[in-house]
């Protein structure tokens, strides 16, 4: 199991968990859709798994390098760096300070940009790229890191259609390579294509296969008033506007 959590509680201040009772185990090559309403705890969970926040209770184990692609671009778009420069940052962690970045890493960064369909933009100033393109560069960076586990926080939000298709293909390929993906998403229908689904809303509502979890009661408990039931029993969500 590459990622495992037991009775995990996550939050920012001791005694005030944002999400609790998190309990799941994910194997290599599995992709997990993480469904949660805004404020439901998925970002907090991700930050805890990344080691940014100490857990408030319970335990978790991550067996391998872990990379993140965040929902909101907190990167400095005004920095004079190109797409290639950013992708190359994935190699920084494995290059000790007394060594220069290896030619092999540079080639890996190019290859990663190629995978996400941006190799012809490798010299473009990062801040000039579109939101979807920047998201793809960040995925390339995670690929260069050669991380076993990838956390993607709403990788499709605010992304143009072309980028969305590309990203989906890349994610499926990454899972096929044996990497573990945790994909936070609001797209219930898209979740059906992944191996597992984790539902959160202040606490873990469910974890299991899409068939087991994507049921009306589970989704109602997860999304509450945000849920809309369409015809033929398919579910949809109203996306609330939120500020971060």
């Amino acid at each position, binding site marked *: 199991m590459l990622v495992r959590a037991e009775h995990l509680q996550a939050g*920012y*201040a*001791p005694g005030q968990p944002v999400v609790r009772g998190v309990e799941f185990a994910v194997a290599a090559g599995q992709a997990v859709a993480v469904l949660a309403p805004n404020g439901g705890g998925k970002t907090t969970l991700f930050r805890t798994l990344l080691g*940014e*926040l*100490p857990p408030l209770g319970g335990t978790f184990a991550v067996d391998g390098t872990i990379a993140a692609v965040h929902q909101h671009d907190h990167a400095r778009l*005004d920095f004079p760096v190109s797409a290639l420069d950013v992708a190359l940052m994935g190699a920084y962690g494995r290059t000790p300070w007394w060594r220069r970045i290896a030619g092999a890493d540079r080639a890996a960064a190019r290859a990663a940009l190629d995978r996400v369909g941006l190799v012809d933009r490798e010299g473009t100033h990062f801040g000039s790229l579109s939101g979807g393109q920047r998201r793809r560069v960040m995925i390339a960076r995670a690929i260069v890191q050669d991380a076993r586990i990838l956390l993607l926080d709403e990788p499709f939000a605010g992304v143009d259609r072309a980028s969305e298709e590309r990203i989906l293909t890349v994610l499926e390929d990454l899972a096929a390579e044996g990497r573990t993906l945790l994909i936070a998403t609001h797209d219930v229908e898209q979740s059906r294509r992944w191996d597992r689904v984790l539902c959160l809303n202040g606490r873990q509502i469910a974890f299991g296969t899409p068939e087991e979890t994507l049921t009306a009661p589970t989704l109602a408990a997860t999304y509450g008033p945000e849920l809309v039931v369409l015809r033929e029993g398919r579910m949809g969500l109203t996306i609330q506007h939120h500020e971060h």
Partner: protein
Amino acid sequence: MTIRDRALLEVVLLGAACGPLSVWLLANRQAYAAESLAHAMLPGLAIAAAAGAPLLLGGSAGVVVAALLIALAARDQRIGSETAIAVTVTGLFGLGALLAIDAETPLGDLLFGDLLGVSDGDLIAAAALAIVVPLTLAAVHRPLTVAAFAPALASRPARTQAALLALLAAAIVVAVQGLGNLLVLALLVAPGIAGRRAPRLPQQLVLAALIAAASGAAGVLASDRLGTAAGASVALVLVAAAGAGLRREPRRNVRRSPIEALSDRA
């Protein structure tokens, strides 16, 4: 009135005006603007000093020019407003120092003030400030509160900010005579911090005014007793009062780099 009494009157008036202003400056995160404007107006003072003209006049012109250039710089997309303002301020301050080298008024007085040399004109200006600033703040109290605590709801944010900055400019021009353009920041930042002890905003405004006036008076009296520079003594007492107004808050959980903490808009 003795020299010391005039200095006392000056600082008490300045304290009454700048105390509540300081609360609003901090609430609207304008400490950097205050520092920048105070430093950047030096050329105005220097030219007035070199020409033998009244400092109030030179200071006003200096502040207006500084404000315009800083506003221009703040728009910069390429470098970011903080750096652009820093460049503008450094350039203007350097220019002011150059111009003041051979002036009649020694550079030290421009930088650190001449509280014991307060003229009648300065006292009148301070009295006017002590009336105009609190009245204006009272008049725009509601928009200022909204701008500081619920900025998304502000209806005319630019006008409110402009009003605050205009008051800031006026306060700097008047206070610069006594404290100098380097130390005037004490009046604009310390009382607001000291005022935090009071639970609610209206009480903070009053407390800040009282502490500023009292600190000013204490500073003048101390300088008289100990023979230290008056303006600097006032500034130190103000800073000490701010220090006394601080409280220990619980630590946040997030581990963060010190440089990121500096960029935080708390």
